[in-house]
């Protein structure tokens, strides 16, 4: 008995040390690769949004939810992540419904082009900091590349153990705390790099979206329908990667068949007022703050006019929620304006 107690005590000490090491070695995504912290920031900010955005960098770089609230009274949140694939969007939507039921879900259809997991690194940015739930299990299983193992998501030290020589002050500073890196999921960027020569067009041999993408789109559509949510499909207005007419036709056709709204914003650049000599931070791939605010205004008007979203400004509880956020947003953006 005494022997067993001693062994148990040593094993417990081992587990505690291993847990501490795991926390230390797992990336914090606070000052470097902050895209990895976006998914988890939501857990501190969820609650009663009109709109939830889902998708890849074309959502978290291109829409400013705080601008949408400030100018149109629409409450929105972006649950985007780097290279978010459609099955990841599905599971993130499913997880979101644990916390709230938005009136509208806006899904950026760019990820319809990808039929298989792209890279382990992107998977990690989306999944690592998700809370454990059946959705997290689902997203891991759906996303893993061949070389990955489920166990390394359960015990991240199995993946990050070799970071011991790459530890920085960030790993100590954020060992037990975290900070918000986005404004309601919007990753602020105020730099400008005008569009120059875009890569030559290399049309795919087959434009047809994969069956698996349609399957997940169906699941998202069904989930939204069951929960009384309007699903809106959008394609960001960015210049690159190219959104071919053949892609557009497939989404238009899907939207028509399922009674969904689809905004192909690549055709509305002038209407939005985008100027790619000033409104992009990387030569037309993503929008900067100025472009994002223009696009936010445009989409807000669409949501108001086409879906009847109302203005929440003046509602005390919502205003209270946004006062501090807007102050922070202005502090971060005004110096440059």
């Amino acid at each position, binding site marked *: 008995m005494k022997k067993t107690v001693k062994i148990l005590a040593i094993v417990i000490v081992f587990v505690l040390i*291993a847990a501490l090491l795991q926390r230390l070695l797992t990336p914090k995504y606070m000052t470097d690769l902050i895209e990895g912290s976006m998914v988890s920031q939501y857990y501190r900010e969820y609650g009663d949004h009109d709109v939830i955005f889902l998708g890849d960098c074309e959502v978290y770089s291109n829409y400013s939810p705080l601008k949408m609230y400030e100018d149109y009274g629409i409450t929105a949140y972006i649950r985007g992540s780097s290279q978010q694939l459609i099955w990841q969007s599905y599971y993130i939507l499913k997880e979101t419904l644990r916390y709230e039921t938005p009136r509208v879900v806006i899904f950026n259809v760019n990820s319809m082009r990808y039929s298989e997991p792209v890279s382990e690194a992107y998977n990690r940015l989306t999944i690592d900091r998700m809370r454990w739930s059946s959705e997290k299990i689902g997203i891991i299983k759906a996303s893993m590349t061949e070389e990955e193992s489920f166990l390394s998501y359960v015990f991240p030290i199995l*993946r990050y*153990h*070799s970071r011991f020589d790459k530890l920085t002050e960030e790993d100590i500073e954020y060992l037990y705390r975290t900070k918000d890196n986005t404004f309601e999921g919007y990753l602020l960027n105020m730099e400008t790099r005008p569009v120059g020569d875009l890569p030559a067009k290399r049309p795919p041999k087959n434009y047809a979206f994969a069956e698996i993408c349609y399957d997940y789109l169906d699941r998202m559509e069904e989930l939204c329908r069951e929960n009384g949510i309007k699903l809106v499909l959008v394609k960001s207005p960015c210049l690159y990667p190219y959104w071919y007419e053949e892609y557009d036709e497939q989404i238009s056709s899907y939207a028509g068949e399922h009674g969904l709204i689809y905004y192909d914003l690549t055709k509305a650049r002038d209407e939005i007022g985008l100027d790619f000599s000033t409104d992009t931070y990387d030569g037309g791939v993503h929008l900067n703050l100025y472009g994002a605010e223009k696009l936010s205004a445009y989409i807000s008007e669409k949501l108001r006019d086409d879906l009847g979203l109302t203005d929440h400004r003046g509602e005390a509880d919502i205003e209270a929620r946004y006062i501090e956020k807007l102050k922070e947003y202005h502090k971060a953006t005004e110096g440059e304006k």
Partner: protein
Amino acid sequence: MIFELAVLLAGLAIYLTYGIWGAVMLLLMSVICFVTGLFVYRRKWLLIAGTAVTALPLLLLKTAPITGLSLAFSFGLSYFSLQMISYISDVYKGKTEAEKNFPRFLLYVSYLPHMFVGPIERYGSFSLALENRSMDTYENITGGLMRTAWGGFKKIVIANRLSVPMAILASDTERFRGIYALAAMFVYSIQLYCDFSGGMDMALGVSKMLGIGMSENFDRPYFSETVQEFWRKWHITLGSWLRDHIYIPLGGNRKGKLMRAVNLVITFLASGLWHGIHYILWGIINGLLVVTGDLFKTKNRTVNRVITFILISVLWSFFIWQGTGTALFMMGSVFTDIIPSGAGDSFKDLGLTLTDALVLIPSLLILFIYDCRKEKIDEGLKNMGVTGRWSIIMAIALIILVFGTYGLGFNATDFIYSRF
């Protein structure tokens, strides 16, 4: 019997994850061998027929590179085939009784701990180990975990870390010739030892946890003073098998010095073939070195050890650069092109960092000290109290967890000797 069945079923379930056809082949061969065993006693024709049938898949596997045959071979075939052959032979000679219980026989053949890197057990010793299974749960678990952790340290911390520069060194024979080739030979010596003996420690450790003792396969081989001694201490169970089933039936040392030499070379040729068709020359050279071993011996034991280590390391070239011609070319480059032109400062491109050095140097030092003082350390560990032993197990586990090379690009069950 319940214990044996449980171990058998668990092992087979894991074995099935390596492919259904391999499992079918294992089962089929087991049935053939089991039935042969029932009737083979003093029936020479059945001994020959049974051995031929059992050896055929192994022979096909080893000669596949030249025959071009691509069959679904069973995982662990190189190990269990030899066990089957030794079983048939031992029953024929009356050294062991035929097993009449098929599940028990199947457990001998498919016992999972020996499927990855051996050891190659004789039925008699396996059966004895099963019957005399240790019931000291504390000692089984503690000793077994300690052995497994030590094996993990050798494999995951040392061998896997060395595999990164080794892969680079082996991949570019144009650039990494001469001094780089020489470095590769020595690095590979250490990598292979840590990989193989580490895997063996893990197999023996897991088996010990089940209370089943298995044969040792290593006895600090790099401390050998001659190549002959090295082969008595490296892959011991394969050496014993070759001695009993090839060297002695050929006449051993009973027919004069010349025939002894011929028999030794043939035995090592067979050893080479067991590793694969490309290793035949490696086997023959080893055989010749065993025959002429004393020529290299001096009065200084350390010098003898260094010479033996160099000879063995150079011969691992056949393992590093698969393909006899390439291996010979790389060995030759050490003499003809010691500083290859165009290699520049290629040591920087080997993927080794300061961190690797900081992990490898103390790890190799620990390994060296352990191998030097093995008996004393083992004795000390055995007499240590619960706190001491378990603290060491957990400390090794933490070292593996943090300083091990595993994860993306590494398969935990991928041992160099699993490929043979």
